[in-house]
């Protein structure tokens, strides 16, 4: 069952074409291919919205992101920035090897935690499982 506020957020996320959902106070946002174009700014806005409405951690999932270009790096740095400003943790999940190398080389890994997949990211974050409720499925 969605709460009203969650339902509203979900609606806005769909409107901006960015896939996302909440597990407790963790927001999971899918990087997809939008990340590598100016449309990636929508992902940053979506993250900001989630943080403003109380998310304490962000999981950015890369399961359907094949590569990350310079625009994507810049967008991700923007996300890291707003998360740091609001004291939230950032986890990147399901990042392929080549992209991990790139993140390491550029120093992004100094600011985020890497997780094998979304599940590991969520369980790694200290969210009691009893409070979690996946929405949008």
């Amino acid at each position, binding site marked *: 069952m969605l709460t009203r506020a969650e339902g509203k957020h979900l609606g806005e996320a769909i409107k901006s074409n960015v896939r996302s959902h909440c597990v407790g106070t963790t927001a999971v946002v899918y990087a997809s291919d939008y990340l590598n*174009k*100016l449309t*990636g*700014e929508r992902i940053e806005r979506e993250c900001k919205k989630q943080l403003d409405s109380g998310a304490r951690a962000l999981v950015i999932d890369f399961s359907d992101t094949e590569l990350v*270009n*310079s*625009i*994507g*790096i*810049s*967008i991700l*740095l*923007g996300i*890291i*920035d707003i998360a740091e400003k609001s004291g939230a943790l950032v986890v990147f999940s399901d990042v392929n090897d080549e992209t991990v*190398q*790139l993140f390491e*080389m*550029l*120093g*992004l890994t*100094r*600011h985020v935690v890497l997780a094998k997949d979304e599940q590991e990211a969520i369980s790694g974050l200290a969210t009691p499982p009893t409070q979690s409720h996946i929405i949008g499925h």
Partner: protein
Amino acid sequence: MEPNTQKLIHSFGALADLGQEIADTGDFIEMVRTSLHLLLGTLAIRRGAVVECPSHLDQTNPLALWGLGEGYEARFSVDDETKAAFLACETGAVAVHTSAAHEPSLVSFLAAHEAEYREQLIELIVPMIVRGDLTGLVLLGGKASGEPFNADDIEVIRSMVRHIGVGIHTHRLLAEVKQQAEENRRLYFDLRAIYRDTVRAFAAAIDIKDKYTQGHSDRVGKYSEIIARELGFAEEAVEGMAIAGYLHDVGKLVVERDIINAPYRIDAKQSSELNRHPGAGFEILSPINHPYADIPLSAKYHHERMDGRGYPDGLTDTQIPLGAKIVTVADSFDAMTTDRPYKKRRTFDEVVHDLRRNTGTQFDPVIVSAFCRALLKELNGETRERKFLKMLGKNYLDARKDAPLLVQLLSELDATTQSAAAGG
């Protein structure tokens, strides 16, 4: 893969994307935003801004910002002295906290904004210099790695900033050219409107001489315009036909007023005097440099007939210019549908009858067809404006009765033109 190789591939990819982005003439602000992302992402620089320095202003104008504080606008006053200092800046990039010593001319500029840079975590200012002009500035924060910028980084930044600068500069030039073109276009339309108004005023003066046919030239202009549009003429040619219609009787200015106004049928001598008006119109119109073709010829030949029995030259069918043929139909239709000194205007039945009888001998069937189609469209309510109604008055046409007459005439004309085409 070697980290250095990977770094190079990443940078080259960004540079290629940047080149493409700048060559794209789409949305300017999107171009600058994308370019800023490409620049930041290449070296994983955490925040930055692109601001322009319009040459007529001494304040910067923000074009794109990323990762900076909410509401922060990156507006600085950049006076001529500061501009000169940036242009002379040797390293091509100014480290805001340490450069003061190396760039004495920028000391006051850097000091004035010191607090701002600290708050926004800005570390580097790179001037965008295009053709010796300060196009703008790029402000950059630190790298995600926490390492300081090295000489290679500065090289990459400078070359990407140059690219962005050229993009902004080109956009400005294009905008100027577009504005100039837009102004010219407006001027051209103004001129055309003025020309048309002048000609209409002139046409009214022609009609004043003929007290029974007030507004005749104006209506012939409008009917000619309608026919030309129905024939699919380009907008400029349509306007030319309106002008030709307004001016077709200009030669009447040199014909005796008494003959024009004779309240009876005129005799042979008077008739030959009246018949001078097409030639006289040509004489009047020829020396004028009209923006449209064929206006003098339309005046000269608007009393010619398809069968060669018209005047002044007795031309036949293909010898008569299309413009003149259009004016002929427009002129005759107005003559039939307005009261004359010696006879009342005809009913629409009679007009259709006359058109049918005289098409092929006096009128070109193609023109009559176009005329009938345009009128039928108005009767069927397919037109936005009811131009015929305005000219003919409210009670003249009756769609229910008159539309079938036009449909009938049109199908007959179609048959004639088709058999003519087959035979010829």
